């Protein structure tokens, strides 16, 4: 069985060759996955919030504005080519029965912030599975380049 590495909240994972990277139970969080098919290098960052506002953190992946460039850096360090990257995103749901917290619709804001951060780096989103009211598990198979999204009610789908 191939190795599965979990990208927890704020964590960034990059691997090459074989294995899977998975962000389990994305609610309002957004996971950004990048893949270079030519090198079979894949990476994922599990973003919790849109903006760092200059805050110091041990987890650059926690915020969209710091996490997305951090993931790209790690991908390039590993040997991925920026012009070959396939970028897919999942998450950003609104789960609760009422809008709770001090952020408004945090899922939606996370998706917007991720899109902005990607476009600042000149990266296009190839596919996405975002919004709605359901939690998701997002997995990238580094060996095959297959991206899947799983939900409790909707089963498993490829994006």
């Amino acid at each position, binding site marked *: 069985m191939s190795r599965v590495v979990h990208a927890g909240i704020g964590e960034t994972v990059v691997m090459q060759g074989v294995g899977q990277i998975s962000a389990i139970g994305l609610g309002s969080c957004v996971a950004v996955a990048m893949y270079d098919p030519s090198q079979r290098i894949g990476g994922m960052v599990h973003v919790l919030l849109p903006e760092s506002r200059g*805050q110091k953190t041990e987890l650059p992946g926690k915020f969209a504005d710091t996490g997305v460039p951090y993931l790209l850096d790690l991908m390039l360090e590993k040997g991925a080519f920026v012009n070959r990257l396939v970028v897919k995103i999942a998450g950003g749901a609104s789960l609760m029965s009422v809008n709770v917290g001090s952020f408004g619709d945090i899922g939606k804001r996370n998706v917007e912030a991720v899109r902005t951060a990607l476009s600042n780096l000149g990266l296009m989103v190839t596919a996405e599975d975002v919004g709605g009211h359901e939690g998701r598990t997002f997995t990238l198979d580094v060996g095959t380049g297959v991206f899947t999204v799983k939900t409790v009610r909707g089963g498993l789908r490829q994006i």
Partner: protein
Amino acid sequence: MEDKDLQDPLLMDALKELANIGTGHAVTALSQMMGKFVNITVPEVYVVSLGKVAETLGDAGEEVSAAYVGYHGELDGGAMVVFDRDSTSKLVATLVGAELDLQDPMAASVVQEVGNILVATFVSALAQFFGNIIYPEPPAVAIDMLGAILNVLLAEVGQHADYLIVAKTNISIEDANIRGWLIDIPTPQSFQKIVGKLGL
């Protein structure tokens, strides 16, 4: 803020004590509602990185039901009660008197009712302990993946912290085979401040 700042035994004991008070009140309310005896365990307190909270508490991809109350004031944070799938079905069956699909709106409303009583009582016990300087938000519920539901709470408390201090108390209604747990996660900043002030 670093891990080691939160490993302070004084802080951990203070949170354990708070969780004990809060859960005690909460299960008394549940017990009255259900007409059944509700057991609680001694709270466990963890200091964990944001990325590991879900896996410390359970399986992030598992379907659970949960009710959440955020609170603000001198202490900021959130409390959540979680029941696994089986326990949710049994809880619903016990209270409604019929087996329901978890996607049935009626099931969600039962979860809401029970969850509200538990978390709202928990937070108001904290407020009482601190002299009413904590204001709860309206409760919210969801039936979905554990990790996804926890997002709501972690987005609130994880904004300024990479490590969190988490209190977890297990709840069970033995004769109905219902098991769940209640967690309380204050923001580390507000918790350190308030513990300092109380001279605990």
